[in-house]
């Protein structure tokens, strides 16, 4: 079991997976409590536009994915805050629109190939040394921002009006939160894939909520579920040659069912 981590590509996948697991779970905690779960899925589809553009222009998929998903996250937050359009409607527009756009771009590039498949569902072979450096540096920066603004994000998720009247810069922090979610999703496309990162962000938190604990303990339980799923998902992916995102999300779904069974009374 341990020897598989002697391979360098597995070490890279594991380190990247652990970093993504930690930051996506913390982001997911706020996103779920703000009733904004679909944001992750939407931005994941938007990041696919970045991947498609990168294939067309032969540039770096991760950087292009970061740019497109961050710009889309700002647009979504702007429309939600200033134009008072229902958030789920905005997300539906971006989700379908970006999928359509990426299919067109990929068709133009004539590259509907296996490399695109790995961006959709994740691949343990896909994490290069450069990717790992990017995921580590940006991931630690994102984590630091979450630590700094943890209490403000929590207050905003609980009661945005009360947070604002306590001096929390709510509008600014809402933009920051969607930006961080966009960055995390773009970083995740190598290991988990664009179509499955939404599940990794949301399901561990939903599972942890079943234990009916306070916020801090809920985040700790969600981190445990997410990390266990990522590590075991990567091992399964290696042994059975299945896309890593798919195995990770399948394990996390199993954890969700287990947490439902463990907390049946609720």
């Amino acid at each position: 079991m341990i020897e598989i981590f002697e391979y360098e590509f597995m070490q890279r996948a594991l380190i990247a997976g652990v970093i993504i697991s930690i930051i996506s779970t913390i982001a997911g905690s706020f996103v779920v409590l703000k009733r904004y779960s679909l944001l992750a899925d939407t931005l994941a589809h938007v990041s696919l536009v970045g991947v498609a553009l990168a294939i067309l222009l032969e540039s770096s998929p991760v950087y292009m994915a970061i740019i497109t998903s961050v710009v889309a996250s700002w647009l979504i937050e702007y429309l939600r805050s200033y134009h008072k359009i229902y958030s789920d409607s905005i997300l539906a527009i971006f989700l379908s629109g970006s999928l359509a756009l990426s299919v067109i771009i990929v068709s133009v590039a004539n590259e509907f190939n296996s490399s695109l498949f790995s961006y959709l569902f994740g691949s343990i072979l896909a994490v290069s040394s450069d990717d790992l450096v990017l995921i580590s540096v940006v991931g630690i920066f994102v984590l630091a921002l979450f630590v700094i603004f943890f209490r403000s994000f929590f207050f905003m998720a609980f009661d945005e009006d009360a947070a604002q009247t306590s001096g929390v810069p709510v509008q600014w922090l809402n933009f920051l939160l969607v930006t961080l979610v966009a960055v995390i999703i773009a970083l995740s496309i190598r290991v988990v894939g664009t179509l499955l990162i939404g599940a990794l962000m949301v399901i561990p938190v939903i599972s942890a909520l079943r234990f009916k604990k306070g916020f801090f303990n809920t985040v700790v339980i969600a981190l445990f579920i997410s990390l266990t799923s990522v590590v075991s998902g990567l091992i399964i992916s290696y042994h059975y040659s299945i896309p890593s995102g798919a195995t990770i999300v399948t394990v996390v779904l199993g954890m969700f069912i287990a947490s439902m069974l463990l907390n049946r009374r609720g």
Partner: protein
Amino acid sequence: MIDLQNDDKNCPIFPVISVTNLNISLGSETVLKDITFEINKGDYCAVIGPNGGGKTTLMRAVLGLQKFDSGSIALFGKKLSSFKEWRKIGYVPQRASHVDSEFPATVREVVCMGRSSGYSLFWRKKSEDEEAVENAMQIMEVKNLENRRIGELSGGQRQRAMIARALVSHPEVLVLDEPNTGVDMAVQQKFYALLRELNQKHNITIILITHDIGVVADDIKSIFRVNQTLLANDAPHEVLSCDDMSELYGIHAHMVDGHRHD
């Protein structure tokens, strides 16, 4: 032991909230028209009026949560747009007692929120924060519930936790929007006794948006009757007449508990 660092009763009376010629419309509909009033430090006021009459909109505008068309609002002598000392104001919104029962927060975590901002975004837990949280929980009698989830509590307990959160930053003004919705009479009486203590002992200015005017009439120093305009701003015994209440609510009112009949 109980200390809100706010017991300076000898300070001169000055307006903590000044509203001048305020007009608010939502879409094409005028919600509030030409509202002018002042609330002084140490006041205990009630804002009453029919549903949809603009009570909540008025207070949301004062708290910077609602845009307004014209007029001006000043808090502690500073224009709303340049007011920064939000820790001086504690706000318990209308839906506070209807918290999502699944929300993962213990009473202690909720009370701590009130300490997480207003001072610095880069908040670190200090002993004075710990002390403020303990004090607020003791005053609102929720210390024994500190590890319970907020969603598990009764309406009255939840409401006390919410007020403890508002108190934890040592506010000088406490704004409560219909705090007693869904809370039984006995709990309400105890709750109003606590508000009286906060006002009289700790000199906290209290603004209560409410329908239960009869219950608190003895404590309240002034009543704002709001129905699109400010119909009057008077002492309770001058407002609580059948005619006045009929004018405000647009229905025939009948006073039954010893307040003045015209």
